[in-house]
């Protein structure tokens, strides 16, 4: 049987290498993100929940396909129950780093992890 390497042309190898480096650079950039501080749950229209990692909890959210359940713990947030057929979202967790994302597209649920609130956001008003 012909090996994979022997089946590839020079252009195939160059293309594969370039795409791999591009994907690795993107993955490295994501992994270098600091731990997140807040969880935002979005239903595609608005933010329906926001909170921190300081409490262990299980939350339910209702979407077009049914109820999705999230588990929050110190090590991250994960989807533990989903009504969608492929359960892709259940394989995406836990999310803990700033910028991490869990998406349940059929049930329109987006869980985002963000860093600390910007310093200016804690003020209601600044006057001079």
């Amino acid at each position: 049987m012909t090996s994979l390497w022997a089946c590839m042309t020079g252009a195939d190898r160059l293309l594969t290498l370039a795409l791999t480096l591009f994907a690795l650079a993107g993955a490295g950039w994501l992994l270098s993100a600091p731990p997140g501080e807040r969880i935002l749950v979005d239903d595609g229209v608005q933010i329906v929940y926001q909170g921190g990692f300081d409490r262990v909890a299980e939350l339910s959210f209702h979407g077009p396909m049914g109820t999705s359940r999230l588990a929050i713990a110190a090590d991250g947030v994960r989807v533990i129950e989903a009504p969608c057929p492929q359960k892709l979202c259940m394989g995406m967790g836990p999310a803990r780093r700033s910028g991490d994302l869990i998406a349940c597209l059929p049930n329109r649920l987006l869980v985002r992890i963000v860093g600390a609130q910007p310093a200016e956001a804690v003020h209601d008003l600044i006057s001079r």
Partner: protein
Amino acid sequence: MTSSAAEPAGLPAARRRTFLALFTALAIVVHTFETLLPTPLPWLRLGLANALALVVLFLYGPGAAWSLTLSRIVLGALLLGRLFTPGFWLALAGGCLATLVMTGLHRFGRGRFGPVGISVAGAVSHACGQTLAAWALLVRHDALWRVLPLFLLFAIATGLLTGWVAALLLERLKRHPALADT
């Protein structure tokens, strides 16, 4: 279907149609079977049916690859009860972008790209197409693009595997008397 010595010119076209129908049926079976198989990660699929799209691309050209891919997506979704669900639109967007890139590389690559390179480019395009469709149709949030690098790494690995399968299939098929003249 019959052919006679009086119309020899019709035989290659009839043979092409027959083999294309067989490859399409096989692609639907592989796609359906693969969907039913358990995987280590729920969103990780090999996409082995794409090996058959590559085979017809190299044997019969871009039109045949489009025909097989669109038939597989629509009939596969019909069989699995997923027609017009969000998953169907994601698969359609991914399949269309992948086929566009694969046929483009095949036609304009001047023979520099083999089945493996075209398969890797197709798999990466499929992941990009699905993410783009998810962003446009389902969750219009820029954070969705953050999962793309992970999808791309899996797509490259599965693209290498399906491209290798397609190359081995082509190697064997081109030795077959019925396909030797294609």
